[in-house]
């Protein structure tokens, strides 16, 4: 729990730096069966590409009714627009795919306790931008493949991070304030 405040501070500092550079496209909340968090999308030189930074508390077991301390995860994804649908009246719809990296202090499927995970990720989803209302809504899924480092019987063990694959089909939705 003590790590949550520094993690959020780091995320906000990152957001502030990007805002100062005029790169931030949106800032908002991230919702999923996996957890609840903050997300930020920044623009790149290529208008078809964006970078997404997400920091969330892992709450899947809390949603399932079991009260436990949450883990935390940071996810970076470089997203490429696959298709832009016809936009009208300030509304824009697009499909995207992305790749990036994730790292966090999390629990894993069928295992006790927390461990450190680091993984490569791939995302696929859709975004709806309502420019007149300054609202950006994105929904998608993310697959993570990588190791999970944890301590068991006083020794460190590295194993596959199962939830990265088992929870890949858990959809997420982000609701953000869209800057002009």
């Amino acid at each position, binding site marked *: 729990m003590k790590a949550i405040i520094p993690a959020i501070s780091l995320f906000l500092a990152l957001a502030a730096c990007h805002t100062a550079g005029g790169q931030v496209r949106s800032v908002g909340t991230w*919702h999923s069966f996996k957890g*609840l968090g903050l997300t930020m999308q920044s623009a790149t030189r290529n208008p078809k590409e964006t970078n997404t930074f997400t920091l969330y508390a892992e*709450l899947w077991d*809390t*949603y*399932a*009714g*079991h*009260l436990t301390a949450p883990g935390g995860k940071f996810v970076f994804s470089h997203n490429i627009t696959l298709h832009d649908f016809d936009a009208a*009246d*300030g*509304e824009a719809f697009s499909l995207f795919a992305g790749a990036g990296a994730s790292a966090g202090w999390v629990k894993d499927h069928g295992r006790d306790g927390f461990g450190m995970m680091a993984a490569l990720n791939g995302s696929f989803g859709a975004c*709806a931008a*309502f420019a*007149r*209302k300054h*609202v950006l*809504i994105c929904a998608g899924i993310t697959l993570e493949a990588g190791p999970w480092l944890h301590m068991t019987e006083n020794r460190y063990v590295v194993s596959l991070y199962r939830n990265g694959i088992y929870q890949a089909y858990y959809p997420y939705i982000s*609701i953000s304030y869209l800057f002009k």
Partner: protein
Amino acid sequence: MKKLTAITVILMLACSLAYCQERPSRFHWGVEWGYGASGFMYWSNNYFDAKVGYRIWDEGHEFAFVPNAYAGLYAGFDLGRRINLSLFSGTMGIYSDRQVIPLGLRATYAFRGQDSQGALAFLGGGLCFHDLFVSAPGQYLQLGGGYRIKLGGKMDMDLLAHLRACDDHPPIWDEENGSYVDAANIRKNLAVYTSFEVGVAFRF
């Protein structure tokens, strides 16, 4: 889970049928989810302890922080320019290790009209079903408000906050015997949970 699936299918069928009607503008459906934390809790249990041979009366209250979440679908009609009445169901966490399936009605008053951007107030209530313990369903009551953002077309986004009180009839854990009290030995098992929730709804 079967109840939840059945309710979801019924709601989706209702949505589909209603969309075929000539006046779709008065019909609205939506998806809603949110997060909250329980606060005040009251319980009153009365059961027969077969081991000691007499009736146990246990009553009390406490303030406990228990995070939870809810999600569901709703569908309903605008009864007037400002009032909408909807049926809501889904899944609702009400306490630690306690999730229920709500089925209730909610009246929403939109101060500037249901089809306008602006503030909302709502009052809802209904029954809470639990799969794991066969008993009388619980009840819930919610009172809240929010703000509707017209995103464009037929899509609105509601930012919501509400207070919720829910009574429940959970199984009774007997610490001395290390097991749940047999349902036949329970005369009363009442728990009341209150919580504050914030949520988001997409309304179509």
